């Protein structure tokens, strides 16, 4: 259990590091995506019980079941991060059309 927790924290850390170190907008979006996957991983492993089966009630064997709510949270988060990434990608397309480059220095037109 501890390993997965540390792994998810590592994934989140890499995602967040990718956001600040990359100079290209697409890489920032990818970084955000990775961080989202890290959070999803963290959420899913919360309800994990050793040897339990998926929480599907229709004619399920009488074995202990994994906790269903974190999986619901993860599903919603996946949907939301999907929508946000799609929107950001289309916006970066638009930015490229308008400013001709994806580098954050050129794009950063709004100075002080």
């Amino acid at each position: 259990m501890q390993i997965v927790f540390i792994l998810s924290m590592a994934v989140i850390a890499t995602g967040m590091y990718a956001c600040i170190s990359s100079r290209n907008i697409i890489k920032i979006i990818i970084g955000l995506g990775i961080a989202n996957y890290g959070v999803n991983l963290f959420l899913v492993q919360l309800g994990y019980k050793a040897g339990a089966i998926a929480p599907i009630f229709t004619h399920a064997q009488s074995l202990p079941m994994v906790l269903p709510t974190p999986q619901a949270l993860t599903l919603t988060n996946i949907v939301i991060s999907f929508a946000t990434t799609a929107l950001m990608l289309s916006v970066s397309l638009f930015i490229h059309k308008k400013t001709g480059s994806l580098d954050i220095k050129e794009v950063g037109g709004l100075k002080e």
Partner: protein
Amino acid sequence: METYAGFWHVEWFLTAFIILFFITWLIKSLGDKKYKSGIQEDIFLSGHQEKEYSDYIGSENLYWGFKESLRRYYSLMKKMHNGIISEYIFWFYISILIVLTFITFGVI
């Protein structure tokens, strides 16, 4: 209206304002109102006859004195707001560290 360490009464302020506005209006009406139109109404530009001048001072150089005296502060601000998104996120990470240290070590 009572506040923690003071108070504020609107009604007295408004009555005083109305009475004193009337008194000042009386004082002002003592003066002379009429004047000769024409050249007398033009703006005094040390005597020069500017046909079309823009008397408007661009918003860039208003408060030059204040900006000049706080030059170092404003150059720091220019560097801080330089429009690069990864800088903004970097500031967010710094704030996370500050908040987490503050909240875990209970620094009141």
